């Protein structure tokens, strides 16, 4: 029983982090039809930048902020140089291009920071007591932060002036342009936002398992699964799906090893694609 409670907490916390990553991915896909293979690597770079800043300043919150900003700029640069020329081309070309970028980013991280695992120390010490169980506070804090950030994103999209621009462009790019919305700029901004969220996720996740140059791939994989299961381009759906899939994986980890628990996600993906291809949490289209 204790196991189940702990795993539930794990699932929820991991789910929130994954939700942050998937939100960025689904936003990017929804607006410009790009399946960003390098998303997890942006997360990874964010974690490394965060680790470095933390090492220099000792301030976790500063590290989080700097990582998000730096990677946002990197993301914008990437979009302008490699993805803008590909607008209008076959979407599979963008998978290939972002795959190439992913390789470069991974190896760059290896070159810049070396192969050893970096540490990001927890921002908050101590354990949280639930009944007689102990659970690290920082993980709870992480989940809350993730929820806040996602909430902030949602508010921005719903009420902000630029949020309206983003939603309009997602729905009808041509008409948005006709209304004077500078679509190319919106694309770059969205990519930057997605990158920033990925980077922040990286820093938040850092204390969980250390920072390595391959940590991004697992996230990319899970984020892809979650975005499909949640309905591509559907923000709410991908958040729900993130929690759902993470919980399932956490429970599965009771029975099999954590590395094997990812198979559960795969099964969910397969079932979704076969029976509800528009997404598990999306009402079936008429």
């Amino acid at each position, binding site marked *: 029983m204790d196991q189940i409670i702990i795993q539930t907490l794990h699932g929820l916390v991991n789910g929130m982090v994954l939700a942050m990553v998937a939100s960025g991915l689904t936003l990017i896909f929804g607006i410009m039809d790009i399946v960003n293979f390098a998303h997890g690597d942006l997360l990874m770079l964010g974690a490394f930048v965060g680790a470095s800043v933390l090492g220099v300043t000792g301030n976790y919150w500063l590290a989080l902020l700097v990582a998000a900003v730096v990677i946002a700029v990197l993301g914008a640069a990437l979009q302008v140089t490699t993805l803008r020329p590909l607008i209008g081309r076959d979407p599979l070309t963008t998978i290939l291009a972002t*795959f190439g970028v992913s390789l470069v980013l991974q190896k760059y991280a290896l*070159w810049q920071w070396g192969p050893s695992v970096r540490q990001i120390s927890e921002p908050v010490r101590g354990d949280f007591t639930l009944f007689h169980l102990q659970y690290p506070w920082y993980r709870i804090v992480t989940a809350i932060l993730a929820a806040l950030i996602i909430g902030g994103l949602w508010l921005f999209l719903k009420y902000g002036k630029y949020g309206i621009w983003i939603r309009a462009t997602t729905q009808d790019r041509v008409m948005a342009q006709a209304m004077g919305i500078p679509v190319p700029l919106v694309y770059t901004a969205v990519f930057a936002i997605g990158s920033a969220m990925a980077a922040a996720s990286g820093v938040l996740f850092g204390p969980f398992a250390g920072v390595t140059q391959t940590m991004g791939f697992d996230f990319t994989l899970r984020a892809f699964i979650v975005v499909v299961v949640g309905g591509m381009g559907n923000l709410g759906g991908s958040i729900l799906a993130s929690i759902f899939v993470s919980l399932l994986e956490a429970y599965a980890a009771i029975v099999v090893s954590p590395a094997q628990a990812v198979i559960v996600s795969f099964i969910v*993906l397969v079932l979704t694609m076969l029976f509800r291809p528009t997404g598990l949490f999306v009402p079936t289209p008429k």
Partner: protein
Amino acid sequence: MTASIAARPRSPAAPYWTGFAVVVALLVIAPLVLPPFWQRFATEILIWGLLAMSSDILIGYTGMVSFGHSAFFGLGMYGAAAALLTIKPPSLGLAVLYGLVAAAGAAVFVAYFATRLRDIYFAISTLVFSQIFYVIIFTWTEVTGGENGLTFRQPPFAIPGLFSVPFTRNGLHWFVLAVVALSYLLLRRITQSPFGMVLQSIRENEPRTRAIGYHVERYKIVAVMLSGLFAGLAGVLYAIQNKFAAPDFVLFLISGETVIFNVMGGMGTLVGPVAGAAFFLLMKEVFSRVFYEYYLIPVGVIFTLMVIFLPQGLLGFLRRRLNQ
């Protein structure tokens, strides 16, 4: 030589066959004149070239981008390992058989998805599938040797009942060359047949192909099976050449590299991906001298630039240049 192949893809005219013969002849002589390192290199190019060709069937001809080739390759490898470890004396034929059957098994699975999913969803699920596969191999230590993989002895080149001769280094190279060359000829025959034409038609415009009356699903299934089988064969060859099977080769990166070969060389040309494999491996060698293990940085940059500016690959680029 490449020029004549590119300029006349349909008619097997004299220049084409001459070119082909020249390449084969060069590869035959290779082990005799090259230093051992480059000799191995030549053999490896052949094997990766076969893998690249198998992938081209799906990506280049049928238009289905797949990141799952590491699974087929890996299954071929581990299948051969299984035969060579469990059956004494080690038999070449059985190694090939086991490997192909294992790869075929995975191919059936993937083929099922190919018929139900399109484009991005298919690509993502092959990606996930190959990763799952890696996890299984990595963690099922009792069967697969886990992280360390399996080692075994190289089987002799044997036709049961007739003769049995252990492979020399040259002999192995020629064997691989023979298998790859035959595979190439077979694949070429298939892609230039009406079947191959339908595949390309599916790539260009699937709804229209379906509307004309072709059973698109059946063609896709066959394409996946073919692709998987030849990828598995490449895995078998790799196992035989190196005498080990390791999870590293089931990593997604292998699938990724395969896709790189295809894009760099020129999709849908069969020859292109082989050239792409050679080009990539060469670049890897050269850049490794300068950048050590960071060779993927410049290679990755070149790949990305090629996707953007040279989507037709090297072969396409050459083709255009020579047609001007």
